[in-house]
C-alpha cells in the first residue's frame, strides 16, 4: 500500500501563547514546537500499522521551512519510510492544500492521511480542499480505519454516534482520537530515521484567500468565588441569579 501522511508543526500543547507587533503576529520565541498531535498520534501511527500489516510505503509530506525537519525526522523515527518537505511558509489552508494537491496529483497514493485539525489554527479545512482538488472520496473525523482489499472501512464520529462508512481507494481521510494509540519512537527508529530520505521540493505559486489581521487573548477571569461546601444551596442560587445559567 502506498500511503501518504501529511503533517503539520504546532506549538507544544503546554505552550503559553503570546503575540507580538501589536497583537498581529504569533510570538514564537521560547515556544517548543511539536508534530500536530492529531497527525502524530492517530493518522501517522495508523498508516504505519497498515504498512506493517499489508506491506508498502509510508511517505511523510510537510509544507514548511527547514526548521520543520526535526518533526519530520520524528515521523520517520515512528516508522515512516521517506519524507518530502515543500519549502514554503504554510500561510493559509488554501495555500497548503494547493501545494499538497500539486505534489500528490501524479503519484499513486492509496490513502492520504491528515489529522482532523491542527491545534494552532483549528481549521480542519486543508484535507477537504485537497480531496476536492484531486476529486477523491473524503472521510472526515474517522476514529477507526481498516482496509479490506481495495476498500477502506471507517468509523466516522458524528453527533451522538458513529457512522460506519466504506470507501474505495484512493481516498482522503482525517483522523480523530481513537484511530490509533500514540507510539514513542525507540532508539533504533531514531537512528534509522537519520538515514531515511528527506526530499525538499520548491512550492508552486498559490494565493492566500484569507488573512489574519489581529490576535486577542481571552479576558482574565475576575477571580473564583468560593462556596462553602456545607452550603451548596448558595451555589445553586449563584448559578440561577448571578450567572443565570440554570
Amino acid at each position, binding site marked *: 500500500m502506498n500511503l501518504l501522511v501529511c503533517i503539520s508543526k504546532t506549538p507544544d500543547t503546554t505552550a503559553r501563547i503570546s503575540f507580538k507587533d501589536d497583537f498581529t503576529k504569533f510570538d514564537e520565541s521560547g515556544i517548543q514546537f511539536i508534530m500536530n498531535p492529531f497527525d502524530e*498520534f492517530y493518522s501517522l501511527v495508523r498508516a504505519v500499522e497498515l504498512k506493517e500489516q499489508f506491506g508498502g510505503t509510508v511517505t511523510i509530506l510537510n509544507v514548511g521551512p527547514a526548521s520543520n525537519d526535526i518533526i519530520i525526522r520524528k515521523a520517520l523515527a515512528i516508522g515512516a519510510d521517506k519524507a518530502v518537505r515543500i519549502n514554503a511558509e504554510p500561510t493559509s489552508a488554501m495555500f497548503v492544500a494547493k501545494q499538497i494537491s500539486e505534489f500528490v496529483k501524479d503519484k499513486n497514493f492509496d490513502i492520504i492521511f491528515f489529522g482532523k485539525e491542527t*491545534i494552532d489554527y483549528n481549521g480542519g479545512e486543508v484535507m477537504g480542499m485537497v480531496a476536492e482538488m484531486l476529486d477523491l472520496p473524503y472521510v472526515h473525523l474517522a476514529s477507526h480505519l481498516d482496509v479490506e482489499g481495495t476498500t477502506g472501512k471507517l468509523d466516522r464520529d458524528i453527533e451522538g454516534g458513529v457512522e460506519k*462508512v466504506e470507501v474505495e481507494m484512493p481516498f482522503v481521510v482525517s483522523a480523530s*482520537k481513537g484511530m490509533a494509540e500514540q507510539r514513542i519512537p525507540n532508539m533504533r527508529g531514531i537512528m534509522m530515521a537519520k538515514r531515511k530520505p528527506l526530499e525538499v521540493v520548491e512550492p508552486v505559486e498559490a494565493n492566500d484567500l484569507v*488573512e489574519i*489581521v489581529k490576535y486577542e487573548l481571552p479576558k482574565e*477571569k475576575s477571580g473564583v468565588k468560593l462556596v462553602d*461546601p456545607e452550603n451548596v444551596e448558595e451555589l*445553586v442560587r449563584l448559578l440561577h441569579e448571578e450567572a443565570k445559567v440554570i
Partner: protein
Amino acid sequence: MKILIYIDNRKNILKKADLELAYYGHLIGEKHGGDVVAMVIGSGENAGELGKYGAKEVLNIPYDGDFDVSVFSNMIAQVAEQTGADLIVLPHNSSGKPLIGWLAAKMNLSSVAGVINIPDYDDGKLEFKKGVFSSKAFAYVKTLTDKAVVSLMPNSFSPEEVGSSVDVNTVEVDGGTPKVKVAGIEKVEGKVPLPEADIIVSGGRGMKGPENWGVLEELAEVLGAATACSRPVSDVNWRPHTEHVGQTGIVVRPNLYVALGISGAIQHLAGVNNSKTIVVINKDPEAPFFKAADYGIVADLFEVVPKLTEALKKYKAGKG
C-alpha cells in the same frame, strides 16, 4: 448581502444549532443589510419554522440518501450560484467541518472555520473572529475574496424569534453520485452531542475510577447536562474517547461547565475556557482550575456532589 445557511434536515427535526444558524444569519443581515436564505437538505415539512428565527426564504432540497461530502457540496454550490449567495454559513459540526474546505476549493472562496462573532464588513470584505490555539487565543480573520464560506461554532448565539414562518419552496438540484458508502449508523441514544450541549458535567482523575461515575451522571441528569471527561480519564478507558474534552479532544463552549476532580492542566483548560460559566469542585485548593473558574467548592467531590444534586432537585421542583 445574501446569506445562505445550510441545514441538514434528513431526520425532519430542526435542532437548536439549526435555529442558531438562521438567527446568526439574521444578525449579520441586520447589521450589514441583507437577507437570509435557508437551504434545507432532506425534509421540508417543518422547515418553514426557520422563518421565525430569521430566514426570509426557505428552499428545500428533497434528499433521503446518506451524507457524502461531494454530493452535499455540489448541492450547496448549485444553490449558492442560483441564489447569488455572498456568504455561505455552515454549522461547525460533523457535516459542516468536512464541507467547508471542499466548498472553498470548489468555488474558490475565502473560508473561516469555527467563527464566533458577527463579522465586521468593510469594502466588501468580512472580518470574522474565531478561537485559535485551541481556545488559548482568538484571531480576527479577514476574507480576501468577494464571497466566503464559514462554519459557526455551536452555542455562539442563543436563537431568538424575530419573525414568522415562511413558505417552503422545493428546489431540484443534482449532487451527483456519492463517493462514500454509509453502511450503518451506531447511535448513542439520548445523549446530547458535546459541542451542542448547554451544560456539561465533566470528570477527571479525582473521580478515582469508572465505577464512581454514577455520582457525576446523577448531577448531569438533574442539570440536563452532557457528560465529558479529561484526557487521562479517556486514556485509561474509564470513559469513551468521544467524551474527551480538551486541546487534543473536543473543544466546547457551553453555558455551564462543571468540573469534578479535574486539576485543570493547560491542555484541558484550552478546550473549555470559552465556557460562559465554570464551576470547579476539587479537594485540592491549589488545583490550577480554580484560577479559570467562576465558582468553586474546595471539598471531597464524593461528599459534596450528591448534596449539590439534591439541592438542584429541590430548586428544579420549586421552579416547576
